[in-house]
């Protein structure tokens, strides 16, 4: 069977891990800077006060003046989610994450190991941990599993057999389907309010009226496909980070720090000459929040210049000064043939000699003994703020 793990409001929960007291108060995930001022997930206390996810910020604050806005912390959310997926994988499940707070996994391979489907699902809930209020739904098809997980109570597991699936799905609202608000409204105006109502409509009419999205939703309302779960590839986990002595907001400084981190991460022996497919840049911000951007390269590479071109412009999107910058190689591909150059570029020999010399110094004096000076604010009137010493351990 296909199981679906659901942790509603995962990003908010992750952001509240450091401030658990807020979980009991009216709180909501603040909108990301530069996006529409719509609220993210909200706490139960906020919901009781009439605040709903997706509500306009002004409306929510008018309805609940004591509402606390929690800064999104995508880095913590990503880390916590990765830890959860790993715990599931450690329990023997092959996991296909669908986004923070939602993942599919196959139970077939582990049912005998744990003594049945329910035992296996219980094991999955235990692996996630009760503090996250996880819910698990299981069915023969993905969408039914997702629907079961969505309606399950915290800590509950809900199994829906293929025969029960149509009757189980029928009374649920259209909000379970991946439909645009406009399309959903259109259906509701036509008197179609449940999944069962949509499933009963003829194929051709839905396609004509609602287009490709509608056809997809219609297919899901009728149970969806039986596509199997494809377990993810383990992330590479090669990380380098740099903690600044004081918060840095200057883009030039950050670009230089990023360049130094890129040098370090590319030189890590674990990379083993492989090329980078996906790379993530994250930052811990002053004031407690975090920021994260990923870049997936169409053509995997290990070239400093290309990686820098892919990620460095994103530094301009940083919403606040940075306390720590972190660079992570998320996905690596096997080495591929590369065209060697006929004439080595100027300075390549000297650079390789220098690298070898520094390697010997490090070998005799230990890690952290070789640093490079990164000029950060050469215009500063405070001498110690003009440059930083960045350790180089490659």
């Amino acid at each position, binding site marked *: 069977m296909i199981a679906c793990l659901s942790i509603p409001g995962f990003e908010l929960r992750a952001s509240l891990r450091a401030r658990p007291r807020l979980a009991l108060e009216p709180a909501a995930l603040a909108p990301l800077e530069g996006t529409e001022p719509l609220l993210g997930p909200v706490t139960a206390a906020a919901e009781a006060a009439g605040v709903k996810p997706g509500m306009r910020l002004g409306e929510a604050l008018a309805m609940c003046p004591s509402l606390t806005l929690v800064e999104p912390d995508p880095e913590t959310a990503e880390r916590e989610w990765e830890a959860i997926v790993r715990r599931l994988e450690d329990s023997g499940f092959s996991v296909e994450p669908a986004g923070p707070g939602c993942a599919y996994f196959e139970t077939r391979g582990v049912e005998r190991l744990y003594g049945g489907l329910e035992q296996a699902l219980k094991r999955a809930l235990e692996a996630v941990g009760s503090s996250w209020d996880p819910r698990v739904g299981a069915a023969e098809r993905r969408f039914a599993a997702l629907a079961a997980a969505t309606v399950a109570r915290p800590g509950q597991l809900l199994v829906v057999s293929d025969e029960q699936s149509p009757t189980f799905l029928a009374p649920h609202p259209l909000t379970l389907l991946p439909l645009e608000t406009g399309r959903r409204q259109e259906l509701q105006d036509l008197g179609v309010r449940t999944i069962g109502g949509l499933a009963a409509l003829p194929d051709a009419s839905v396609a004509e009226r609602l287009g490709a999205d509608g056809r997809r939703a219609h297919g899901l309302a009728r149970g969806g496909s039986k596509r199997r779960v494809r377990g993810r590839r383990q992330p590479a986990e090669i*990380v380098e980070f740099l903690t600044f*002595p004081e918060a840095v907001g200057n883009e030039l400084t950050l670009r230089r720090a990023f360049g130094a981190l890129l040098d370090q991460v590319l030189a890590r022996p674990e990379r083993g000459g492989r090329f980078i497919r996906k790379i993530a840049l994250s930052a811990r911000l002053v004031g407690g929040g975090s920021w994260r951007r990923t870049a997936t390269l169409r053509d995997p590479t290990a070239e400093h210049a290309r990686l820098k071109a892919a990620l460095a412009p994103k530094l301009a999107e940083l919403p606040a000064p940075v306390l720590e910058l972190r660079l992570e190689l998320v996905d690596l591909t096997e080495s591929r043939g590369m065209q060697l150059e006929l004439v080595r570029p100027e300075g390549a020999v000297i650079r390789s000699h220098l690298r070898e010399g520094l390697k010997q110094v490090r070998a005799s004096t230990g890690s952290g003994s070789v640093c490079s000076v*990164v000029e950060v604010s050469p215009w500063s009137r405070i*001498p*110690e703020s003009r*440059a930083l010493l960045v350790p180089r351990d490659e």
Partner: protein
Amino acid sequence: MVSDTGIPRPARSAGRVNEPRSALVEPEFDGTPRIVNRQAVALVREEWHVVERWWTEEPVRRRYFEVVLESGQNTVVFRDEERGAWFTQRGA
């Protein structure tokens, strides 16, 4: 695939270049240095003030002196007005 070695990498902190070092300074009545690290000051070549970050919780208020000591050594000292202490510094 990379196997997890289980050994956490040490935290990398960027250090500062030209960090101030505390100095033993005996000032004159007007605040100019008379003795720096047990050496008499032969000449005060220059004096300037640095007032920065007054809008933050860590304001910087320094009175710098470039001095020539009796031994002929050129050095820069400053009095940190916020902390009430003397420091020497390179690169000033």
